[in-house]
């Protein structure tokens, strides 16, 4: 298995605070890797460096063997990195289909087209993506008035528009009900397997992490302190001490 994403020696400081110091990991096609750790451990910084929102101080990020370190978010995206945000980010004044159409038109470099109506451009392809996430029946509703769980699905469809090799999901299930969480992650895992997409996600819900990740990586104070199968990480005493606690807040703990 050749790595879709290979990260080595990734570093970033903000005003003397070492947010991320020397993180290294790799991720293969179809694999789901969870990134966990206490608030402020450097997860978001790490994430933002992978898609170019933050420029690293050092280290390399390789996508399919190509160095993408320090590239702009939109260039990284064009090379096949999709992203969903912790707080849902969609274009609220458009319909669901138009949201996906915008991403598709951008991918096909047709945003400067001046002689066609945008609402008819790339519509069939958008509907196909919406069918994949189970949102085709709501294609013509306004995005701004959708229920939260549905928005998350729309976001997923948008993130699939550039036929990503790598999908970065920042707390994908935050704010969702338990059943919706399971549904969304099962859908993500299926799409990842079918299309060979590597998925990296951060998450605070341990039921989601231990239920859906193939591998788990733990950050603390900018360093990787553990990596392995969910079972191994779950029984790691150090991880329990700094992050997981007694286990009363997830799983069969109550």
């Amino acid at each position, binding site marked *: 298995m050749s790595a879709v994403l290979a990260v080595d020696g990734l570093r970033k400081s903000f005003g003397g605070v070492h947010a991320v110091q020397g993180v290294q990991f790799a991720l293969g096609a179809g694999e789901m890797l969870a990134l966990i750790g206490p608030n402020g451990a450097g997860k978001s910084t790490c994430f933002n460096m992978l898609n170019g929102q933050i420029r690293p101080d050092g280290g390399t990020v390789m996508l399919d063997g190509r160095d993408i370190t320090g590239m702009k978010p939109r260039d990284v995206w064009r090379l096949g990195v999709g992203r969903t945000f912790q707080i849902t980010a969609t*274009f609220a004044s458009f319909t669901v289909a138009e949201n996906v159409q915008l991403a598709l038109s951008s991918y096909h470099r047709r945003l400067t087209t001046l002689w066609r109506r945008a609402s008819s451009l790339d519509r069939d392809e958008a509907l196909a993506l919406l069918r994949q996430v189970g949102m085709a029946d709501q294609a013509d509703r306004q995005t701004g008035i959708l229920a939260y769980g549905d928005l998350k699905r729309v976001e997923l469809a948008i993130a699939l528009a550039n036929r990503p090799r790598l999908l970065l999901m920042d707390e994908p299930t935050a704010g969702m009900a338990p059943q919706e969480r399971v549904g969304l992650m099962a859908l993500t895992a299926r799409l990842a397997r079918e299309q060979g997409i590597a998925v990296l996600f951060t998450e605070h819900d341990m039921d989601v992490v231990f239920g859906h990740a193939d591998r788990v990586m733990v950050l603390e104070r900018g360093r990787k302190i553990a990596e392995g199968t969910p079972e191994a990480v779950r029984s790691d005493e150090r991880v329990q001490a700094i992050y997981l606690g007694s286990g009363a807040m997830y799983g069969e703990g109550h």
Partner: protein
Amino acid sequence: MDIVVVQFLTGLASASSLFLVASGLSIIFGVSRIVNFAHGSFYMLGAYLAWTLVERLPYGPLGFWGGIVGAAAIVALLGLVMEFVLLRRIYRAPELFQLLATFGVVLIVQDATLWLWGPQDLLGPRAPGLRGAVTILGQRFPQYDLLLIFIGPVVLALLWLLFTRTRWGTLVRAATQDREMVGALGVDQKLLFTTVFMLGSFLAGLGGALQLPRESVNLQMDLTIITDAFVVVVVGGMGSLGGAFLAALLIGVLHAFGIVVFPKITLVLIFLVMAVVLVLRPYGLMGRKPGPVAATVGLVTPLIGPTPRALVWLGLVAGALLVLAPLFVGDYTLTILSEMAILALFAASLHFMMGPGGMASFGHAAYFGLGAYAAALLMRQLGLGMPLGLIAAPLAGAAFGLLFGWFCVRLSGVYLAMLTLAFAQICWSVAFQWVELTGGDNGLLNILPSGWAQTRQGFYWLALVLSIAGILLLRWLIRTPFGHALRAARDNPLRAEAVGMAVGRLQWAGFAVAASFAGFAGGLYAYFKGSVFPTFISIPRSVDALLMVLLGGVDTLAGPIVGAVVYTGLHEQLMSLTDYWRAILGLIIVVLVVAFPQGLAGQARDWWLARNGGRA
């Protein structure tokens, strides 16, 4: 060397008043999120009131300083009245509406001042005990200016103590970030807002009153100072008192040197400094990137759907009637209709950038005026006629749109709007000062259209057809992928970047498109009036455009047309009825803002939706 030192000191003295005004503006904006255009009016009132008080009170230190402080105190009370009567009703309105309402107050105060004090400039007495001058390096320097130099830092220190060492100051700083949360913690926000507004108004009044011994008191003070204050606040960084102080020093000193060294290009010099600062530090010398504004839940900008069939028919019927209008109506009405058509195009260009583009401009008249001057100069300098003039006008608008837009799109929201205003003021001053080229205040005359369009009917048809074509083109652009991408970047810039859109470049292009249509409207307007004046670029002209757009409604495509028609009609009627039309217009603006916060077309749409039970 000596003159350098003295000019430097003069600059520092001017900086004090500027700092007072700018800090007041900044404090008020911080807490209420209202850009108070009327802040300049408070400055002017401070000066007028000080003149009256100092004239009436017995001459002496007590009378003079009592008059100065008294004037500032009266202005603070006027601020209280304005907050109480007007602002409390509109705290929840969109920020541009709040701005409009405060501009309504500007108009009212202008006419009230004219009525109370008359049109002539007033000269105040020198400060008792400080009438003389000291000699610095062989140059005479007024004692009063020396005092002013100290007042700035003293006020800065007092404000700093107030904000960091008192509970009131802590609450104000907290409210600056999240006023709703402060209320939920049991703090009486209304009282807080009122006191903040009084303090800000007091500072403006004091700034104006302190100028009494230095310059004549006149009716132009309000808009002059508000532009300078905007520049200071943008350069210093919104919400930073230290930044405002530094920027006031910088601008004050630049003014002082500019007047001696390059009298003609003082404002260009200030523009260059501002540009350098903003390129290096987009949020000003000591400003920080504004945090995400707490999302207004439930307020979703409506979709832009296909035009309803009824509206298409309405448009076709109206268009047909307009084309046939010369058969029914007289010359006077045709003139008004021509003006309405051109201004509707002007408003539509601003709407394109404000609505789908999400970039509000306080200085859109810049491109209108540049288009007009481009057409006029082609005729006066090169003898080229209307066809080429109407090509040059949008090109001039686009060129300057690209130049100024490059800076503007780095900012957003009110910051962006203030910067557009500053650029417009620079264009205005160039048009005003470069007499050899532009004729200055006398303008450029005899800008005649081509022969066939010199009749009222001919020109009316020309204006009508070109304006409608322009408006339809803009509407089409909104529906193309480019228009969608622009709107997507407005909805969510982060997401837009994350799906490969170059948000900055999109907005830059949108800015230039809006500027080029404004330039085109300006070119038409030049031939319509047969002359071009600096007033084409002035703040009131920019505000006209804003009014038309907001009056009509930002979130509707028909808004700018409705707004232009209503506004132009109102304007004409008022001007023919009374000399105090400004005050009445101001009053109408204030009432409209309070009554129709969505604009007329927006109101009509909601009414339509409610009646038909449909959704947007």
